[in-house]
Structure formats: C-alpha cells, structure tokens
C-alpha cells in the first residue's frame, strides 16, 4: 500500500471541506480523483502534503504515519505534490526551479546531473530553456516544469492537481503520456483532472468526491460505464 487515508476531515476556519475521507493508492497505480469545482479535491491533496492541517483522521504512507507532518518531512518520505496552477517560481530560471525540486535532499553534483537528465528525457524542451526565466515560458512548458520540479525530489507517489488545465490538446496528450510513462517507471500517481474522460482512460481506479465526501469509487473502466458518472462528468 502506497498511501492510505483513514477518515480524513479538514476545515478552513469553521467551514468543513473534507468529511471522513477514506481512500488509498496502491503501489504502481494511477488513481484518479473526480469531482466538480469546489468539491475538495485540491484540499485533499494539500492535506496529504502537509499544507493544510487534517482536523481528524490518519494518513499512512508506506505504512508510516504522515498525518500533519511538515511538508519537508513528507517530501523527504517520497511524496511530491504538483499543485493546481503550477505554482512555479516565475522569476527564477528553469534550472533554479528544478534545483529547488530536490531542496530537501542534499545530493552530490553527479546525482543532480542524473536527475536533470531524467527530467530532460521526459521533457526535452526544458533542456533548451534551462537559463530562461520560468515565467517567460508557455503554459504547457510551465506545466512540464512543474511536473519536472516535482520529480526532482525522486518521489514514489506523485500528486498531480489538474495538470492539463488550460493547455492545448496536443500538450494535454503529451502530459497524459508522461503520466503513463512515470507509472511504468514505478511511480504511483494520484491524479485530479477536469478532463475526466481522458483521466479515466489512463487510470486504474477512481474516486468521485462531492462536497467533501467520497460518493463513488471503483475501477476506472467500470466508472466510465456508470450512467450517473456519464451524465455528471462525461457529458453524455
């Protein structure tokens, strides 16, 4: 078991945003989190990565309790969160952004070079942009940088929050392919996507979240046939 959430709840002030969430990601899986805007998907990812505190419940990461640990502890443990809206450092160069991706590890130069190479293998375009300020790149390139930066911490589990938002179809395709590639290298993935159809195509399992609670879960293929899901999320 990669990640297990047990009865997680969370609030912003007095507003309860997550209620009793139980979910899990198995090792080597792509798991998709589906839900309308404001359902609490981003919040769940933020609680996992230690940005927003969990009010109650428990997260186990490879059996280790990571509930309400500091983000640096969680990144070090092997969990990397590529946030909604990318949150790259626009004023820093692409290279500096990537360096910060492995901030929690003190890696020797050689190891860093290897990591850089593995990111360039996935996103060749970043190699030619190394010395460019990140903010001057296109949206697609920035998303690639955000994922590349997330990979620089050598995660076992990658949380991806709407990686295809606002991108051209061709770029979306590239990113979905990369996600599949990553899984084949042994990285587990928890994916939040508005593009539900495409996300379910590449996922093993999915959870449907409505106003902070999980209402449906199952194999991705089965959910694609589910009439309720078809109507609400696949526009059929």
């Amino acid at each position, binding site marked *: 078991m990669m990640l297990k959430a047990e009865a997680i709840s969370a609030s912003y002030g007095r507003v309860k945003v997550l209620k009793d969430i139980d979910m899990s990601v198995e090792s080597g899986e792509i798991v998709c989190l589906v839900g309308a805007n404001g359902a609490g998907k981003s919040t769940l990812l933020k609680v996992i*990565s230690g*940005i927003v505190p969990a009010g109650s419940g428990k997260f186990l990461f490879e059996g280790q309790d990571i509930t309400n640990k*500091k*983000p*640096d*502890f*969680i*990144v*070090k443990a092997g969990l990397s*969160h590529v*946030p909604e809206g990318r*949150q*790259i*450092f*626009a*004023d*820093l160069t692409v290279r*500096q952004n990537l*360096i*910060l*991706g492995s*901030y*929690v590890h003190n890696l020797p130069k050689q190891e860093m070079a290897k990591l850089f190479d593995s990111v360039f293998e996935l996103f060749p375009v970043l190699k030619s942009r190394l010395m460019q300020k990140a903010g001057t790149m296109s949206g697609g390139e920035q998303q690639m940088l955000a994922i590349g*930066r997330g990979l620089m*911490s050598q995660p076992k589990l990658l949380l991806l929050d709407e990686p295809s938002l606002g991108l051209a179809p061709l770029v979306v395709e590239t990113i979905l392919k990369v996600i599949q590639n990553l899984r084949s290298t042994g990285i587990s993935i928890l994916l939040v996507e508005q593009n539900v159809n495409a996300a379910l195509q590449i996922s093993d399992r999915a959870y449907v979240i409505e106003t902070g609670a999980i209402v449906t879960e199952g194999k991705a293929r089965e959910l694609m046939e589910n009439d309720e899901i078809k109507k609400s999320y696949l526009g059929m």
Partner: protein
Amino acid sequence: MTDFSHIVQFFFSGLTSGSMYALIAVSLVIVYKVSLLICFAQGEFFVIGALAMVTLVSKGLPMPLAFVLSILISTVLGALVQRMLIKPIQNAGIGNLIVMTIAISLTLRGAALLVWGKESHILKPFSSGAPIPVLGATLQPQVLWIISITIVVLIMIWIFFEKTKLGIAMRACAENRLGASLMGISTDKAALLAWAWGSGIGALAGMAVAPLLFMQYGSGVMPMVKGFIAVSIGGLSSIVGSVVAGLLLGTVEAYTIGLISSKFSDTIVFSLLMVVLIFKPSGLFGKG
C-alpha cells in the same frame, strides 16, 4: 566659485553616503523580498553595529575581531527580533507588522541610549594612512574601505541569491509561498535568515561609515529614511534598483550640498522621490 577639484570632492562624498544608503537599502530589500515587510528598525541595527564596534575596540580588541563580532551581534539581534517579535504576529496583517517594526525601532533606540549614553562616539578608521590626493581633491582611506565593503557585500549577496540553494530557496519563498512550501522549504526559516542578513548588512553600513561620522544612539534615523527613499526609487524588491538608487541619492545630495546649499538637499531628494513615484510608482527597477 567651484573648480574641478571640488567637483571631484563632491563626487567622493556622494560615493560615501551613496554606498551607505545602498547598503541600508539592500538590507531593507532582503527583508522585504522574503517577508513583504519594510523593517523600520534597520536604522537601529546601523547604530548598534557601529557602537558595538566602538565599544569592542575601546576594550582593546583588534579591529578585525571587533568587526566580525559586531556583525555577529547585530545578526543575532536581528534573528532574535524576528523570532520573538515578528513571527508571533506574522498573520496579524501588514499594518500591525509595520507598527511593530516601528515599535522595535524605538525600543532598540532606547536600549542604545541606555548602553551608550547620549554622547557621540567615534570609531578609529579601519586603517591608518594619510588622505590620498586625487585630481586636486582628497580621498580618505576609510572611503576606500566603505566602497570595498559595499562591493564585497553586493557580490556576496549576488552569489548567495543566484548560486546557492539556500539563497534561491529564499527567493522562492518570497515569490510563491505555496510553491516553496511544497518543495519542503521552510518559509519560517527563510524569514529568519532574511532578518539576520538584513540586520547584519545594516550594521555593516554603520560600522563602515562610523569613522567618518559622530555616531550616537539616534544616528540611524536619517540613514534609514534615505535608505527607504532609495528603496522606493529603486523598486521595493529590486536589489540592483536599490543599489543604483542609493548611489544616485548620495551623489545628488552631495552635489546639492556642494553646489547649492545643504538647506536644499532634502528638498531635492524628496522631489526626486515624488517625481519617480508619480511617473513610475513601482520604482525605477520595480515590476508593473
């Protein structure tokens, strides 16, 4: 009337006060970049650094040791202030935070009055040696120290914020808190470091100019105001901008005092500020 040697002399005094303003401005920018807060106590670190060095030297410590210790004292003081007074109210809103830095400024000034009294202190120059004649003007060896220190500090800052992982991480905190947190960067630690750096550099400015000024507990007020003006002209988060503006300010001031009258120097400096703020509110090197 003035001749060429005077023009050169004014240039030297402009460079001297300009370097001082630039250093203070840089210390303000470093804190601002990470905490989004102008620290109005920077003038007190300027004074405390200088007076600490005066005391240590008078106790018989060798200059280099007194120099290093004074920087250390101010750096630790800055870090303590951040931890004990700023961090506990960091979410209380920008207004409260600014008021807090003003309160810290006045408290530190009072503390300096208790420790060093009302009288002025003078530090002996970093090196002995006669003034150097240059093109008919004279250059104090201490001015060379001030300029060298400014250059070394600027190079160190550049290397730190461009080349070291920690420095880059601090910039990342300033730019995108959420992104930085997700990388495992502690924004608390970044703010602490920024204050430590900022107070150390503020102190350094005071120590460097102390041999040329009479330094007493209240001597930090005008340099702080000028440093703040430099930052406003240069752009709040631009180190380059604040250095350029600091030097510009010092030079304009020196020529105004020399060629017109010391009575007009503040008028001209503040007019310059107003012109910049009207035509480029974000400062010469600021964004937006």
